[in-house]
């Protein structure tokens, strides 16, 4: 995944209000009014956060002129999660150990008596 897309995603996530908005949208669509409700924050302030999330491709707004419900767009989160995810970490840790094992084998080859 492109580094700049990751940057935009992580920047969008680096705010507790925005993370809370995403957590709410993960449970289903919501209007701006519904999203603003749990926060001691005005709707324009929530809208600002939504704009950041939209620009990061994490939220999409509906076209219904009256309600314009917001919904979560999962793919950028999945991409970010892949980057942070267990698969990469699993192998990164294992290969770090492998570096040490290889170094040890190169420095002390006396144990390698087996024929190949």
């Amino acid at each position, binding site marked *: 995944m492109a580094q700049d897309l990751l940057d935009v995603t992580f920047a969008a996530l680096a705010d507790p209000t925005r993370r809370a908005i995403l957590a709410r949208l993960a449970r289903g669509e919501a209007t701006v009014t519904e999203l603003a409700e749990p926060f001691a924050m005005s709707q324009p302030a929530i809208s600002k956060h939504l704009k950041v999330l939209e620009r990061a491709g994490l939220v999409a707004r509906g076209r219904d002129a009256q309600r314009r419900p917001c919904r979560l767009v999962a793919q950028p989160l999945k991409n970010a*999660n892949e980057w942070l995810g267990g698969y990469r970490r699993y192998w990164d840790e294992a290969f770090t*150990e492998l570096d040490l094992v290889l170094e040890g084998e190169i420095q002390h080859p006396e144990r390698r008596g087996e024929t190949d």
Partner: protein
Amino acid sequence: MRRTLSVTKSGDHEIVMTRSFDAPRALVFDAWTKPELVRRWFGPRDCEVVECEIDLRVGGGWRYRLRHGGGMEMLLQGVYQEIDRPGRLISLETNEDCEASEGEALATLTLVEHDGVTTLTQVVRYGSKRIRDAVLESGMERGVGEGFEKLAELVAAPVKVGAR
């Protein structure tokens, strides 16, 4: 210089990993195929390889049992399809204890050596895009909700100065 691990998707079914090592490829090949070496590095940091059996021949099986610090175990096993020391190793694997992975996966390991540095490439091919994506995304957890919470935790955590 620290070597960087690259993990990417290829097509709809594959995960490709690349990593370089400061070692001859015969040694890297041995590290993947000799139990006494495999035990010392395989798996994540908080897991111990408690069982490691390798029958290194075409049609032969390998079997690793990993035990997590918390006591949970994971069994990994496969059957060798092609063995071409020191450059190529292919096996068909099943990871029964990994939630995300279903059925079998074909893992192709290739080692190329240049100026004493060996570049390892492993291509693992899964039965479907869905399985491939689930494996890549999993940290042993599933779902956007769970993954997102974990992500949020990580983004919120303060960066440790001086940490590697």
